[in-house]
């Protein structure tokens, strides 16, 4: 506990608080604007963090992450447009409530649920991360390789499209990451005799291209008209004490579900919201109200999606394995700042590891206050025309890449990846799996090669070491489990029909 208190004390200075507050404001605002999101903003902010101290940079990015998931609630409720994918389930009940004249009440419930979800999951983050990191210090290369396989299979299994398209995306990400010098011998690989590719595809142009430029192209083609906008009064947005008791069980259950789904590598906050929403509907006394303006629906979705953020930070700081796509970008940010993601972070740079935990807590409080006071104003920002927004986003991408690499070639690479990312979206290949593959490729390859050297070229320990085998089992379950369950259900239903017929 001592390092955690020390971290709180360190972050109480003016500069850290300023960056946490700035990150929270930016996160909430961008999270509220449909089409922009945490992945986009964090990618866009990465070049700016070059000029910051590494701890400040990471806490700034974590604050953006925390804010963006909550911000999606505003546009989901007032505009029927989920600002982030994690707010999809909130739209189902938030907008109908707003149209009934209860926008303030819907926002109040969502803000309160987000806050409680964030607090409960933060407890898990603070309690689980240090011991998990301690345990992971005993992991060998094959345990890490198995973790990488588990992360890739899990995100491919839960992403849109089939498992195969997800895995194809992840493997293409692997392929792109292998261009340039080999991790062990520095032999040039896959450069096809082009000197420009001797450094490989750098992280920043690749991320900005795949996430931001491809999203800009998507937004130009898909400018939706804004739905009828509801408004909310500050008085109505204030949470009531009675809600804590009325929705207490739902709040705790959804927060715990969100946290655990967040901890699973690769599974994002959208899945957390969907699962907890389904569980809340199943256990509700009034399931028919879900989708028409149910308070329980908003509470379940919002507490779970916020809880998943802190949940996803657990494997990030304890194991160096991303819990979501945004975490994959945060791993990239750690690497850019010469920090080694993983359990060593707690021993080598405790101020960064505990800074992540502490900033998530402080940002949660900032976001709560900001949402209470500024929801109405932020909702107005959502209506800024894309004709003003999109060119500026492209310009900041150019500035970001050029200022960090001083190379126009990298700017061109960014645009090439933008078009490639858009093509992946069109082909039905989830770009989340591509980015995870790209980020995890160096870890996966170096662990495999270290393992082969350590065990005289044998892969057997991958299947005999208990943790490695456990991770592989989880990966196998994620790959075949859903199909197996649906086949069993179908068989059971067919058997039931036969009994009824007889």
């Amino acid at each position: 506990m001592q390092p955690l208190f020390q971290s709180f004390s360190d972050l109480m200075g003016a500069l850290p608080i300023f960056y946490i507050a700035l990150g929270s404001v930016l996160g909430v605002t961008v999270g509220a604007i449909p089409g922009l999101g945490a992945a986009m903003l964090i990618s866009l902010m990465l070049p700016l963090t070059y000029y910051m101290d590494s701890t400040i940079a990471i806490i700034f990015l974590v604050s953006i992450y925390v804010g963006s998931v909550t911000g999606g609630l505003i546009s989901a409720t007032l505009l029927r447009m989920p600002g982030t994918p994690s707010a999809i389930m909130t739209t189902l009940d938030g907008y109908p409530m707003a149209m009934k004249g209860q926008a303030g009440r819907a926002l109040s419930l969502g803000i309160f649920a987000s806050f409680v979800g964030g607090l409960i999951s933060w407890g898990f983050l603070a309690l689980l991360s240090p011991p998990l990191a301690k345990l992971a210090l005993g992991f060998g290369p094959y345990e890490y390789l198995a973790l990488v396989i588990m992360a890739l299979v899990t995100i491919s299994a839960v992403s849109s499209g089939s498992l195969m398209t997800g895995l194809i995306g992840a493997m293409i990400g692997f392929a792109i990451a292998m261009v340039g010098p080999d991790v062990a011998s520095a032999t040039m690989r896959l450069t096809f005799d082009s000197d420009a590719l001797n450094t490989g595809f750098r992280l920043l142009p690749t991320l900005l291209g795949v996430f931001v430029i491809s999203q800009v192209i998507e937004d130009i083609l898909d400018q939706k008209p804004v739905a009828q906008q509801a408004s909310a009064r500050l008085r109505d947005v204030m949470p009531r004490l009675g809600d804590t008791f009325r929705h207490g069980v739902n709040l705790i259950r959804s927060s715990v579900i969100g946290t655990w789904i967040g901890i699973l590598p690769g599974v994002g906050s959208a899945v957390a919201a969907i699962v907890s929403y389904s569980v809340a509907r199943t256990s509700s006394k009034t399931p028919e109200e879900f989708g028409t303006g149910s308070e329980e629906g908003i509470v379940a979705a919002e507490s779970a999606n916020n809880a998943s953020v802190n949940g996803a930070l657990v494997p990030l700081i304890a194991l160096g394995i991303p819990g979501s796509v945004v975490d994959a970008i945060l791993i990239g940010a750690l690497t850019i700042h010469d920090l080694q993601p993983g359990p060593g972070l707690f021993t080598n740079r405790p101020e960064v590891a505990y800074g992540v935990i502490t900033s998530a807590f402080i940002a949660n409080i900032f976001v709560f206050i900001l949402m209470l006071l500024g929801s109405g104003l932020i909702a107005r920002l959502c209506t800024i025309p894309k004709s003003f927004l999109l060119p500026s986003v492209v310009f900041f991408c150019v500035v970001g890449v050029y200022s960090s690499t001083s190379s126009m070639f990298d700017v061109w690479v960014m645009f090439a990846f933008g078009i490639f990312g858009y093509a992946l979206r069109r082909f039905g290949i989830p770009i989340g799996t591509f980015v995870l593959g790209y980020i995890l490729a160096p870890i996966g390859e170096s662990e495999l090669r270290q393992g082969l050297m350590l065990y005289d070229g044998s892969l057997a320990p991958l299947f005999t070491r208990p943790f490695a085998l456990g991770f592989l089992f989880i990966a196998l379950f994620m790959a075949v489990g859903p199909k197996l369950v649906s086949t069993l259900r179908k068989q059971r239903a067919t058997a039931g029909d036969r009994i009824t017929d007889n």
Partner: protein
Amino acid sequence: MDGKSIKDALPALLGLVFGIALIAGAWNLPPSRFEPMGPAGMPRIVGIALIVLAALETIRVARLQPTKPIETPDEPLQDTRVTARKGLGLIVFVVLTFGYLAIVSLGWLSFIPASVLFLFSTGLVLTKTRSAKTLLLLAVVALVIGAGSSRVLQDVLLVRFPGA
């Protein structure tokens, strides 16, 4: 079950192309001297994995029910016009972006004026209403973002932009 279309075959095709490219790219890499795998090992593994995944995806798509041609009423003329306008907007946007980068890369115009022009012209392409007020607003945004932020980066963070 979902119906199949040509679009469903594209992920497998892309996987196959990348798989073959990886194996071809790893063909001439030197063998390892100090460790079991060497630099060519991982590209080969990933290349083979991509080809296997592409084959599995092809089988999955082949087993899907073919999509029945659905008789839909003709698309309203207005919708077709909107789609065409957005498509044209995207093409012009991409051309302007590439033009901007080319101008900056070749040093035909220095970074700040090129950026202001880019922001104004792309905003103009994307905007729906072209009133005097919108044009003025676009010009102000282009100046503030293009010139203002570039100058801040140049003077405060000492970033040297091309042509500056």
